[in-house]
């Protein structure tokens, strides 16, 4: 049981990332592809936070915990994940803006039809 618990969170992160990649590669709609990219991103958050976790520890916030009285989880990976969640959303918005432009120019959001247009 312990051995499974040691790697399960990492494997879940890998699974989410690969599932998102599969969706990206087989997507028939650019908006759907952007959604799959955000699934890929969430895989990286799971991996980061899994690396920083510590058993029986509390959150690294000392407003209601006496410093040093309890072990805390790793704050560095949390800071990395936190900024990326918000910045990733704005990058998603930029990609969707590009998709809207593609739809305006070519009248389709299917990547296969788009590559046929190029000839």
């Amino acid at each position, binding site marked *: 049981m312990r051995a499974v*618990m040691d790697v*399960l*969170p990492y494997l*879940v992160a890998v*699974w*989410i990332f690969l*599932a*998102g990649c*599969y*969706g990206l590669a087989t997507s*028939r*709609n650019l*908006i*759907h592809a*952007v*959604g*799959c990219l*955000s*699934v890929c991103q*969430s*895989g990286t*958050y*799971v991996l980061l*936070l*899994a690396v*920083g*976790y510590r*058993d*029986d*520890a*509390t*959150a690294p*916030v000392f407003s209601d915990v006496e410093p040093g009285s309890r072990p*805390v*989880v790793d704050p560095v990976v*949390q*800071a990395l*994940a*936190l900024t990326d*969640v*918000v910045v*990733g*959303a704005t990058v*998603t*918005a930029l990609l*969707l803006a590009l*998709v*809207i432009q593609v*739809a*305006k120019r070519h*009248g389709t*959001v299917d990547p296969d039809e788009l590559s046929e247009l190029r000839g």
Partner: protein
Amino acid sequence: MADAVVVVALLLVAGSATVAVLVRDPVRQALVLAVLGVVLAVLFTAVQAPDVALSQLAVGGALTPLLLLLAVRKVKRRKGRER
């Protein structure tokens, strides 16, 4: 006990991520992504990351699905006019 919560949340996250990829209609996908965002927030709370959970709840549960739905609406409206 804490481990059990983490495992359940992990499995829910893996399941909803898989569904989010396999659902091909972007509107339905946006709804599944909102569910994924909320489940991820639960997982992050369980691994003692309230800060990340808060931003995931706001971004993954509301902002990203909203942007996706607005993009779908714009693209659909164009298609409707062309026909």
